[in-house]
């Protein structure tokens, strides 16, 4: 789960990292009032779960409260990478002597947290990795021991020469690791970590992703979830324990299993169509889930046809068939549905569907091809 910059900064503050003050506004007037309270120059920053805010015009410097209001009125409601800006962070503009990068994430290969630090901050770190890989130092953390003092110190010496800055950075690195562990992050990043002309090290941007699987024991972090920042369909899917991702096509897909769901989307494309979504109804056989899935898919006006691809293992095909029949009674579905069911209790399922007037397939290729045709001819 991605959280906003202002929320990430709150976690960093709790861990002791020096973060400039700042408040969130949802209206230009609030932004003006915050800027007035802070005094001096401020930065107005769009709070959206995507990178490239600066390039998109979502980050603006304001000399006065009035200018902050003006910027906020332009940024609020702006679309950045398909996401609408609903909040801005208003924070003092800092004078910057130098910018560094400090991040920690879970590394799949070493199966451990790994730090990446670079004296070249304030820019895209993947770009630095490509152009100037020696400017990045990676340090793997043994989860049995956690971050060791000499590792933090050694990374700090890679960022700075001045012992006073090294000392501050050592501390920040330790605090960042604490924030990362305490909040079960998959990523925690400060970019840039700045040095002010007065020699103070500060985190002026913050990016944090939380491991979804750990949220059950982090209620205060779960509360950071911004329902306005995601499509309503995804909120509904999560509440129904479905994995759902909205895509741009017109063939609605309802599949059990993430790998099969991706392969089904790919097959839609293979047969010349475009999938409208990724949807995994999971391993359970609960008919309510099928109903919720159909409600979510049919709420998307671009969907022209719907396909079910169910390989019954734990999931029982007859349960899914019952779910489809139930859903058809509850909701008024305007688009054609084609169904492929195979595996556990396949016979019973086909019987149920036949009784309700559905045509059912047993081959994945056949059902996908049919759904693509139906969408194309709609």
């Amino acid at each position, binding site marked *: 789960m991605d959280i906003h910059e202002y929320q990430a900064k709150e976690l960093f503050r709790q861990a002791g990292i020096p973060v400039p003050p700042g408040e969130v506004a949802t209206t230009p007037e609030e932004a003006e009032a915050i800027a007035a309270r802070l005094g001096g120059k401020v930065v107005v920053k769009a709070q959206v779960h995507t990178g490239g805010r600066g390039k998109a015009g979502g980050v603006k410097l304001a000399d006065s409260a009035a200018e902050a209001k003006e910027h906020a009125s332009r940024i609020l409601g702006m679309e950045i990478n398909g996401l609408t800006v609903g909040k801005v962070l208003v924070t003092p503009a800092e004078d910057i002597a130098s910018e560094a990068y400090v991040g920690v994430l879970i590394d799949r290969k070493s199966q451990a947290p790994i730090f990446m630090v670079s004296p070249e901050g304030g820019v895209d770190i993947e770009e630095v990795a490509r152009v100037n890989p020696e400017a990045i130092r990676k340090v793997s953390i043994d989860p049995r021991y956690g971050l060791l003092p000499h590792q933090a110190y050694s990374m700090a010496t890679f960022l700075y020469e001045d012992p006073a800055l090294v000392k501050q950075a050592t501390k920040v690195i330790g605090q960042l690791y604490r924030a990362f562990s305490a909040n079960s992050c998959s990523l925690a990043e400060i970019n840039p970590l700045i040095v002010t002309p007065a020699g103070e090290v500060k985190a002026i941007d913050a990016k944090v992703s939380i491991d979804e699987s*750990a949220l059950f024991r982090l209620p205060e972090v779960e509360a950071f979830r911004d329902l306005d920042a995601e499509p309503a369909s995804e909120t509904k899917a999560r509440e129904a324990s479905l994995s759902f991702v909205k895509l741009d096509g017109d063939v609605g897909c309802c599949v059990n299993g993430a*790998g099969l769901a991706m392969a089904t989307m790919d097959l839609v494309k293979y047969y010349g169509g475009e999938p409208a979504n990724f949807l995994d109804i999971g391993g359970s056989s609960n008919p309510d889930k099928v109903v919720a899935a159909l409600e979510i898919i049919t709420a998307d006006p671009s969907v022209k046809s719907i396909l079910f691809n169910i390989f019954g293992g734990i999931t029982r095909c007859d349960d899914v068939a019952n779910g489809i029949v139930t859903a058809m009674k509850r909701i008024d579905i305007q688009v054609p549905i084609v169904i492929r069911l195979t595996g556990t209790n396949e016979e019973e399922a086909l019987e149920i569907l036949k009784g309700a007037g559905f045509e059912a397939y047993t081959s994945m290729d056949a059902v996908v091809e049919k759904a693509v045709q139906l969408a194309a001819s709609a």
Partner: protein
Amino acid sequence: MSIFIDRQSRVVVQGITGRDGSFHTHQMVEYGTDVVAGVTPGKGGQSFTSSTGKEIPIFNTVEDAREATGANVSVIYVPPAFAAGAIMEAADAGVEFIVAITEGIPVLDMTRAAGFVRDRGARLLGPNCPGLITPGQAKVGIIPGQITTPGPVGVISRSGTLTYEAVNQLTQAGIGQTTCVGIGGDPIIGTNFIDCLEAFSKDPDTKAIAMIGEIGGTDEQEAAEWIRDHLEIPVVGFIAGQTAPPGRQMGHAGAIISGSAGTAAEKMKVFEACGLAVAKRPADIRVLIGEALGL
């Protein structure tokens, strides 16, 4: 022959009295797996009656179960909050092969548990995996037995139902399997593609391998390079998620394209460069495997 499990495997089920654990224990026993013990804290001394009528003793701890029954394989169906602990318990009790079915284990828990299993010299499969099956001998996990049949193909996959799809197509085409292994869809897993490839390379009965990957990470690329450098039998590769958008998690915690790495196109390119036969859709897998075997 086979890899990891066979009819000699003595299986203990952690979480045997739970909904999933009891359902799949019935299935495993029906298939012929030698389930020798169950573990549910607080229910030690009771027993579990399988659908075949077999009485399986329940213990409070894996240690008790292993001491009493000599179990050497464990399969874990306990809820996510306790699953990493269950993995460490099994390793600590001396179980050699641990299959973790549970989905949704916190990643930081897994960094510790995976290291713990390594420290103890055991092998972990999963978590968030369907387990594995050696057709005609034993199944540990949740893969439906009826879609498999004994034969010369090793199957390795990050996915569950997609594996069933591919295995089912193989079986329907008359091509059997030595062992089908689901390695799991999480970012941190105990046994990866290369571990399975190495094991298959030592199994004289495995004449070809189907390797089914997904977007996210670079395990498939490394596996392809390992195949190029070490493996003599043919491998067919498939990657799910060719149409997945970057930065979005596609169901599996590990199925996410971050930065420039981990796209399906990238993985398929490396497959080709390393000499694998690349399947464009699931149905191609059985075709290419058939060609590789000269059928």
